[in-house]
């Protein structure tokens, strides 16, 4: 019996969801086993686990047409990695420089070859957005160029 990559990936997703549900129910029970604490979590977790088991054994593979509609990992991964780096470095680079770098790198990686556009758009949009939010929000934001109390 052979399994396609998609079927294996789907099974991993179900296993991850079931693991989360089990862990969460266990954690909640450990925190307090009182009726008030478990009144919603326990029945919902039990039903979810049953559905996960059912889906694990019965879920069907996507049709060729459905597979075609799905974007490839190689397209999405660079964006996800770049977005992750952007969010995780915001505290150090600030919303101003972090945003400008994220925009410039994104445009460059997605085929924009005009340097004036890359620099112009990322600088103007990045700084305007960072400055606008820092003005509007009632609490300090991490910044590198603009003044901040963060």
């Amino acid at each position, binding site marked *: 019996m052979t399994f396609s990559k998609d079927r294996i990936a789907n099974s991993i997703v179900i296993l991850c969801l079931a693991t989360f549900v089990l862990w969460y129910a266990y954690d*909640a029970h450990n925190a307090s086993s009182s009726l008030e604490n478990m009144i919603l979590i326990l029945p919902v977790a039990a039903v979810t686990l049953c559905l996960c088991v059912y889906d694990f054994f019965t879920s069907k593979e996507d049709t060729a047409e459905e597979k075609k509609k799905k974007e490839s990992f190689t397209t999405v991964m660079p964006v996800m990695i770049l977005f992750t780096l952007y969010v995780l470095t915001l505290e150090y680079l600030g919303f101003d420089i972090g945003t400008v770098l994220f925009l410039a790198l994104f445009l460059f990686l997605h085929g924009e070859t005009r340097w004036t556009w890359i620099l112009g758009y990322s600088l103007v949009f990045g700084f305007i957005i960072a400055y606008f939010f820092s003005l*509007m929000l009632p609490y300090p934001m991490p910044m590198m160029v603009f003044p901040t109390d963060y």
Partner: protein
Amino acid sequence: MNLIDINSAQEALTLLFSQPQYWLVVIPGIMIGLFFGATPGLQTSMAMAIFLPMTLYMDFLQAMLFLTAIFTGGGFGAGVPAILMNIPGTSSAIATAFDGYPMAKQGKHNEALGLALGSSTFGVLLGYVLLFFLIKPMSMFVLKLGPSEMFIVILWGLTLIASLTGEYVIKGLIAGLFGLLVGTVGFSEAGVMRGTMDIELLADGIPAIPAMMGMFAASELFKLVKSEFLVEDEAKRKVRISQILVGFKQAFAYPVILIRGSIIGVLIGAVPGVGSSVSNLLSYIETKRRDKDPDSYGKGNPKGVVASEAANSTSEAGSMATLLALGIPGGGATAVMLAAFAMHNITGGPQFIREEMDIVYAIIFANFGQVFLLIILGLLLIPVLASIIKVKMTYLVPSVLVLAVCGAFGLTGNMSGPITVLVFAMIGWVFRRYNYSVPAAVIGMLLGSMAESSLVQTLQISGGDITYLFERPITLVIMTLLLFSLFGTKLIKRFTKKA
């Protein structure tokens, strides 16, 4: 009981039309609301809080008109990013995105925005008309609502999960229940901390709106990264006032949906803590359930946009009823208004209604005027907002991601917002890829903690005695309505077939 106090109504009209300065604050108010509502991450309540100090220089009525104008503008504005970017600016516009965004992807963005404007303005108007006639009985009704009634209302919202599962029913249910569990992370009603992994930022739970932004918008953007434009066909990318007007008129082709959505909106909007977040979902689910072609929902059915927008805009009037008649804020926006009450040394409640009825009526009448101003300003500003459709995805994707991240920071005030967007963008992308319903998960997340709180409160009040529910006539009425909405149509069909 007299429903209308004619003398006070006359005084209110004299007050409003003798002093034009009252109207001067309405236009900037609507524009501020539209702008904040249409910017992902900026909330209407945030706009009201930012501009609250300005109301110190106004008298009470002018302050209330300014704040309700922001409220009205924001209510419609939140639907704009839901339609154009799949980012519901607030939880009240979730259901707008279900069909609004697919419409935009089909090149029907003009019609979708027109539909939203038409339904919103109708909703606000009908909501305030109902408020005008029913403010006194409504305030008595709201006082009788307890946690058991709220639980049944939330349960009604949860049934939406089952109807949003699409082709993959089991996966959809798993997604919805996963959302429910995620929604209960953090401190419980009983003061117990669950699922936080000792991360302090999660003590208050997972921030729902940043999570929603991540699941809806960011995950969709990852998918669109290789497309050149949101709408591939160049001819469909045009922004046309004429088509917006077509959409505006089309909203009135569904009077039953508009009226049903508005009634749901005003009733649910009056329930503190529930309000427009649930009313738009209830209206959507009822419309979908009663439609001959429920499968067309979620794929760009205009009725979905009408149902959601009619309900969320009417909720404004519902929450105003609770605020004016009881002095209880139903949500963030009315909480800011309550602060404005305090700044002007006014306390809302039965005494306020009794003694200042002319002011209450003046607020209601001014909102009738705001509806027409919203139509004009909306039609003028929609073409500017809709131009987003012409931006290349290479520029749009990173820009919207940046807006979501900054907006999420704005919502939480710390890095938990942006990190939530990131984590839930990835979860959302995995869910989409493996056919787990993202809307079902988001609804579960939004209603999880509400459902748990009301369930625990009902348990505490009843002492675990189930017969308590049968002593609550309103609970029974809502439960009957819920059961009828779930099975009524099928039963009637079966009986009529037999007959």
